[in-house]
């Protein structure tokens, strides 16, 4: 399969692993955060941790959209849909995310019209097919998915489809990275920069990290060879005392990003003054809402938001895991009260969540060097 097999070539992978082993200085610990949940998933899925030297510590970052969503927002979305007898649409990732009174799937089992879509355009199509019903799209995601929500809203407006609305939970990647860098717990040496987000925003937004904090950032693809090459690029920078933004994922990520997508976002969204992140608290200018021109399609305005506040279960340590302070298995609930089937925290739900990835691919294999 093109663009896949080349990047899973065993000979090249073995060579890259060998090079990494040669590049690491034995008495130094390298703490590298992969910001993006897609990277976390790939690292576990392809068993990369077990191939790396023990002193490379991959720290899982906050780049998992459903993981950072506060439970109250899930409740808000489900409540609005239920009260207005709306068709609730969302990406598959959202379906098992627990609200305080159940996940979208549990609401569905009790009769709510809940539909999984692969694109917000599918949700809009459902609205066109059911003109007598409200169709509600629960939008989540970083800059990766925000443009498709924006284009969908532009189409809804152009076609004047009035029974469609968006509950916007789009967030942006730079503010939480800044929050982690400014956190007193900060012990990182470098970042593996997010791949999909960077296809939209490009590489420039990370320059403050190299300039102000002196840490290397390498924007990476998602295949095993991508990630290993990114680690090589980071090790070279660290060994040579450099701190630069480098782009390993050049086949997809343009340095300046995707200008038409950014324009669409600018047309449809504006920054919220602040937004609550699960486990990280309120972060200013870290999320998007619909601009005034799209108020008619904004579920928060159309229906009003209950503004439900739910405190996370005390024992769950999602915040510490999200910031990379704790490894998933170090959380007291991991694999006990909290499993992918009965998740307490959202990190256990999404395939991109660090806890779900560790549980699914590595929970019982301490023997082969996954868990330090």
């Amino acid at each position, binding site marked *: *399969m093109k663009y*896949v097999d080349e990047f*899973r070539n*065993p000979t090249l*992978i*073995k060579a890259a*692993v060998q090079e990494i082993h040669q590049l690491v200085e034995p008495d130094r610990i390298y703490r590298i955060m992969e910001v993006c949940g897609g990277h976390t998933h790939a690292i*576990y*899925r*392809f*068993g*990369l941790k*077990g*191939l790396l030297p023990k002193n490379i510590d991959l720290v899982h970052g906050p780049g998992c959209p459903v993981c950072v969503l506060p439970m109250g927002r899930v409740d808000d979305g489900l409540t609005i849909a239920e009260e207005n007898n709306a068709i609730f649409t969302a990406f*598959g990732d959202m*379906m*098992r995310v627990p609200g305080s009174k159940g996940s979208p*799937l*549990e609401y*569905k*089992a*009790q009769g709510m019209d809940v539909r999984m879509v*692969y694109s917000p355009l*599918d949700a809009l199509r459902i609205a066109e097919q059911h003109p007598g019903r409200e169709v509600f799209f629960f939008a989540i995601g970083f800059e990766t998915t925000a443009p498709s929500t924006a284009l969908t809203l532009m189409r809804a407006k152009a076609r004047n489809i009035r029974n469609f609305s968006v509950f916007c939970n789009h967030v942006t990647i730079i503010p939480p990275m800044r929050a982690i860098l400014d956190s007193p717990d900060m012990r990182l040496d470098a970042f593996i920069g997010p791949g999909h987000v960077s296809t939209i925003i490009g590489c420039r937004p990370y320059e403050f990290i190299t300039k102000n904090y002196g840490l290397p950032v390498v924007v990476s693809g998602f295949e*095993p060879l991508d990630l290993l090459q990114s680690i090589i690029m980071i090790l070279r920078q660290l060994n040579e005392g450099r701190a630069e933004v480098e782009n390993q994922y050049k086949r997809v990520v343009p340095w300046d990003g995707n200008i038409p997508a950014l324009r669409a976002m600018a047309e449809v969204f504006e920054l919220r003054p602040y937004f609550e992140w699960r486990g990280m608290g309120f972060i200013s200018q870290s999320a998007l809402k619909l601009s005034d021109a799209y108020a008619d399609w904004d579920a928060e305005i159309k229906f009003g938001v209950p503004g439900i506040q739910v405190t996370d279960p005390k024992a769950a340590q999602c915040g510490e895991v999200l910031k990379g302070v704790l490894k998933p298995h170090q959380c007291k609930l991991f694999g006990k009260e909290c499993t*992918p*089937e009965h998740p307490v925290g959202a990190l256990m739900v999404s*395939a991109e969540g660090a806890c779900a990835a560790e*549980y*699914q*691919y*590595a*929970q*019982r*294999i301490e*023997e*082969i060097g*996954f868990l330090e």
Partner: protein
Amino acid sequence: MEAISKSQLRFQDSQIEMAHGAGGKAARRLVEGLIAPLLSNPLLDRLEDAAILSLGMESVAFTADSFVVRPIQFPGGSIGKLAVNGTANDLAVAGAKPVALVLTMILEAGTPTSVVQKELEAIAAAAQEVGVQIVGGDTKVVEHGKAEEMYLTTAGIGKVHPGAQLGIHRVKAGDKILLSGPIGDHGITILLARGELALEAELRSDTRAVWPYVRVLLDVIGEAVHWMRDPTRGGVASVLNELARDTGLGILIEESSIPLRAEVRGACEILGLDPLHIANEGQFIAIVDPQYASEALALLHELPGGKEAAIIGEVQEAPARTVLGRNPYGGMRAIDMLVGDPLPRIC
């Protein structure tokens, strides 16, 4: 049988959800935590795909399967063909030649006669191919909207092959894991046939009777076949996890040895699915004595439709109750059972 109090039942889920029908963890919980304890008896408690009954001198396999697939027709088959092959295959992997089926149809009022006729023709054709007769059945009709066109149930009996010595207790460390052909064709075909995704591929359901393949293995290497299962809902991963859990042994899969069509692999990559979790309707897994594994593979390779059979891994002492996958560059991962239900009503 003593009455079982509610507190003794391990099934704690408050309601039935789609995942309970998906063949993964939730389905297992429902069967083991609610159904099996309330209906418990020695034959049921083995939780095999078919029960083996001794009737006089004969050993007979007995099983049933229901079909709620949506849409009812899809490339490579239809609900009628699945209903015959599915039950016949549950008998086959119990080491029994399918002999007779009974058929129950639940029809939705308003379903065109032509649709019902077409499925009956598909059932007749599949039955002839497998070599079973439909010897009875029942028909019920529910109001329009209370079912979707039709749901089918088939129950079947089979005659146990004299060479069959199958049982999970016979699986031991060192045994090889034989897979009869490429995985995921059925599940991905159904997913694409729904037309909800902007994806197209030249793919057909793999629904077929596996008895011709099983029979050859039992004819030639007989008791060297230790255990068999057909990896339907929940896929190969669920079968192997159940095997690991119930034997207390470990399983190591070489991921590059798993037969997989490019179309299935591509769809799984795009949709973020693991082919090992995708349903099959015409494959089986056989756990084979290592001394006979290459002979078993050669036997399947000689049969039409058997060329893609492969040995995908082996049973190990440790790590206990765990299925591991090793990729060609040495990376290891655990392969867990399916959680949730990415593809409801697949069969």
